[in-house]
């Protein structure tokens, strides 16, 4: 037997007895009308929803429903986040340089006078503690050399070789993120001129690839790249890689973040 595709329609059911042409037309018109009215109302509801969304009061530069969704996405991302999950690393030879952004770097600045101010975690009632560090304090910590991909929120990416101290090693030697058996939830990092500032979850800050970085692509950091010390965290977009660290603070409230205030995702994590 020849096997051919069956393109035929199966036999049609009989027309209901006594259904006249006019009845069929009326039935069709009625169903069409109902369907198009429902469709039209749904479309209007969609337009209404759009206008409602765009007229909501803003929360950090974006209508609040968007901020809620971004934060929910961030929480989901943090729930899935594992410290052991590492950003891919690459051969050092693949590293390149691209300079982007100088907010927080505009003031003249003498590297030799630089000190990193760290405001220790002080839960309500506890006395404030501030400790200062020199670049040699940071360089005394174990030296980490890694080549990871820097992803700009604009959509481009480059591989960069970073050298620095693990943020987690820093905290191990100087336990400033904990007090009375409790750990801070967030880390705030601010430039000396306070023009640029980022916030991180503590879990991201202590990720093994989050560095207090002082060398880039085999050279000490240049001014444009944040000399003498910058933040590197390949689990976040470039906007969180703050250049020229001035102050670090361990807090329970979500810290201000320069780009989040402009409507961007506070988490901006990968």
């Amino acid at each position, binding site marked *: 037997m020849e096997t*051919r595709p069956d393109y035929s*329609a199966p036999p049609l059911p009989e027309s209901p007895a006594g259904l006249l042409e006019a009845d069929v037309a009326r039935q*069709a018109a009625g169903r069409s009308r109902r369907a198009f009215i429902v469709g039209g109302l749904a479309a209007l509801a969609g337009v209404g929803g759009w206008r409602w969304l765009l007229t909501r009061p803003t929360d950090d530069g*974006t209508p609040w429903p968007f901020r809620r969704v971004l934060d929910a*996405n961030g929480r989901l991302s943090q729930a899935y986040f594992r410290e052991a*999950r590492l950003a891919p690393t690459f051969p050092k030879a693949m590293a390149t340089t691209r300079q982007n952004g100088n907010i927080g770097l505009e003031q003249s600045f003498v590297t030799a006078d630089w000190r990193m101010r760290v405001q220790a975690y002080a839960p309500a009632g506890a006395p404030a503690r501030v400790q200062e560090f020199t670049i040699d304090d940071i360089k005394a910590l174990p030296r980490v050399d890694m080549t990871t991909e820097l992803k700009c929120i604009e959509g481009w990416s480059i591989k960069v070789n970073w050298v620095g101290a693990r943020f987690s090693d820093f905290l191990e030697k100087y336990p400033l993120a904990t007090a009375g058996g409790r750990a801070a939830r967030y880390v705030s990092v601010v430039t000396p001129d306070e023009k640029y500032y980022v916030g991180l979850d503590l879990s991201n800050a202590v990720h093994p690839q989050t560095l207090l970085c002082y060398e880039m692509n085999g050279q000490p950091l240049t001014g444009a790249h944040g000399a003498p010390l910058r933040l590197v965290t390949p689990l976040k977009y470039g906007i969180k890689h703050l250049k020229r660290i001035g102050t670090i603070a361990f807090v329970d409230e979500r810290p201000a973040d320069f780009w989040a205030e402009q409507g961007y995702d506070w988490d901006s994590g990968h």
Partner: protein
Amino acid sequence: MKRLVEKHPLAIRWFHWLNFPILALMIWSGLLIYWANDVYRIGWGPTTLFKFFPDGFYKALGMPQKLAQGMNWHFALMWLFVINGLLYVGYTLVSGEWRHLLPDRNSFREAILVTLHDLGLRKGEPPVVKYNGAQKIAYTAVVLMGAGSLLTGLAIYKPVQFAWLMGLLGGYEWARAEHFILTVGYVLFFVVHIAQVVRAGWNNFRSMVAGFQMVDAQHPAAGEPVAGAPARSTTPTLPA
């Protein structure tokens, strides 16, 4: 004498029409994001045939400097896009509609014949079935593209958490390019889809809104069962 015959189930119509504005907004917000690093072009060496996109295109659509807005829309609507897509696929599986949609070994030959017919290069009507071979391939392909957008999107949204996926897709830059190419694919699909809907006429369009189609009571003349064809007990299949 005309008869009124069911064509598209209510659920499929809702999934279809919800997908339309959601996907349109995903493409629009995707363009707001792409604007911030619009590096793709068609060309070789220093020769560029077409740049994605000319400045006039962005300006005409009011797109420059809206990266944050684009990301916020994109990462909110992604949920609706994925949920609607999963419900659609789940429904076709549970209801058995997938049988009309999934191409079989004859669909590819049939698709060529349908395409030749639609281009006026071949006489003879396409087969009288709910979806012809070309439609089966197109509608299945667009669902696979949706899955592709989800996977490439996840890879560029969370490239560290989904590093394995990013690696499978050829790295971060490739995943972004693939995500973009799939979007170009939707636009091409849309152009052909609209042209075909216009060609097919009102009766066909209405069936996607109201669910039914009007046919001659004797219809289809071509519907005499083929001798030896397996009996089918499903609802009637009709011309698109």
